[in-house]
């Protein structure tokens, strides 16, 4: 079975990824940050809109981590590999 070379990422990249992921996790784990009802966003208490907004924020952070860690597919795999629907 053909193996691509294990990717060795620079420590700075790995550090950035670690920080981003930890920020994402702490944002949800540290309940006292958001266990409050004000400021409200329209009728929504802070507790609700904070968590709902945190979802896309975490998605963006994870996407940045994905791009930072992305390995180049081996040349013969073709440019469209790994993308959309495989049918």
């Amino acid at each position, binding site marked *: *079975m*053909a*193996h*691509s070379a*294990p*990717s060795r990422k620079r420590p700075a990249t790995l550090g950035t990824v670690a920080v981003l*992921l930890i920020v*994402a*996790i702490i*944002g*949800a*784990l*540290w*309940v*006292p940050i958001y*266990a*409050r*009802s004000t400021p409200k966003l*329209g*009728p*929504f*208490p802070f*507790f*609700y809109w904070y*968590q*709902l907004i*945190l*979802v*896309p924020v*975490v*998605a963006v*952070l*994870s*996407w940045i*981590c*994905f791009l930072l*860690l*992305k*390995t180049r*597919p*081996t040349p*013969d*795999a073709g440019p469209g*590999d*790994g*993308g*959309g*629907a*495989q*049918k």
Partner: protein
Amino acid sequence: MNHLNAVTFVILVTSFLIVTLIGFASARWRPAEDPMQLTEWGLGGRGFGTFISWFLLGGDLYTAYTFIAVPALVYATGAAGFYALSYTIMVFPIVFIFAPRLWSVARVRGYVTLGEFVRGRHGSQGLGLAVMVTGILATMPYIALQLVGIESVLTVTGIGSTSGNVLVRDLPLIIAFGVLSAYTFLAGLRAPALIAFVKDILIYVTVIVAILYIPGRIGGWAHIFSVASTHFKTVNPATGKPFGSIVVLPAGEWAYASLALGSALALFVYPHAVTGVFAAKRRDVIRRNLAMLPAYSLILGLIALFGYMARAVPAVNAGVKAGGGNSQLSVPLLFARMFPSWFAGIADSAIVIGALVPAAIMSIAAANLFTRNIYKELLKPDATPAQETRVARLASLFMKVGALGFALALNKTFSINLQLLGGIWILQTLPATVLSLYTRWFHRFALIAGWAVAMAYGTVQAYRTPGGGQAHFGASAAPVFGHVIYIAVAALVLNLVVSAVLTLVFRKVGLQDGYDETRPADYTADPVPVPTAAAKTRTPAIPPR
């Protein structure tokens, strides 16, 4: 109490039939050269790209738990039920860290289950068995939760008859489950992977319509929150305390955070989630998916708000009361009272199909575990791939029968407790599985001991916790050192302490360590896939071992 609505019923049955057809047809989807390989039946040929993996993992993770159990908890207790949103926010960053390593080592070594990885990593059959047994044990109540979800929809639509005979009352449920078992048996993981498309379309449509349509009909969000706030402030005569709160109180913060963290850590050691990861085609597919899966978290957050909407509809409250205070009826009742009957049929289909897909994946995952860790390991080491596949098919049937028993026998007031109970057990495999992706510092026997102690502690603690009118297994959070926390997390800490201390002791007395068959490079490898996707240009598959 609930009259059968003909339109809702016809739509529900039609979508069930469509899904059944897709299930049987999926056996011919992306046909395998040799369908009697376990990686074909049990992992869909390990060939799923980003698109399918996203639906499959989503179909895996968002289940009757999301549609029935979470809003039921919000309906009954308020903000405390939102721990599920916090859990699904943090789960993807956590999994982002370790899932690629797990995928790589499994691909290189041909592992189909976590039990095989643990056996290979630690050279310990016993530890592999412990992981397998825990996986099956924890999956049972999770499948049962899916059945409870389907049952609550059937109750509200009036399909389940009110007969006192269990067999007659639950006949529709048994039929639905029997059909599911048949196409899972035939098509393996391909069936839920294809049905997941239908499921997700139904769910997204239902949730978006509900969020846009219902609040306007019942007086807007301000009214919804004010009704909830007033209700949760009133004192529950049974406990002498308020029913709940719409913002987590300081006393509940530990429970909230530990339930979220414990559930997040547990999710990707569940066999069905591992199956979803292993079925991916490339290493990058997993990371890309973990960045995209939060779309499901957003949906979960919106569904949790259904609990408050239901609270604001008097007809729903009356219906829940008439159903014996079963808050799991709140979402199906909300649909029945708020939507025209044709759309209620679509929404109910979303819940039912949303429960069938994960039930199929879970039973396949458990069957894989049994096949690789008991049958191949202990009973018949020289089994051919075809024999493995046959055994796995049968095991998936047994799994479903077991779960059916679980669901019919258990108290269903708080089905979320079934999932939390599973979480207590499955989390105890974390040191042997996830930590072992990084280190072999722990001694294999110390890991077994830590697992055993924590399993015993967690089970006893859960047994001793009353709640929901039950004396035992009533809740999953209990006081530890002055804070009410999720038992799974307390047990995990105990697990780690025992494993660490015994590791030091065993090293001191020179107890022999196991042989590690994996190599450091295995964990970062990204093997180029065999071109399975283009079936026409297929080359003979390289056997995984």
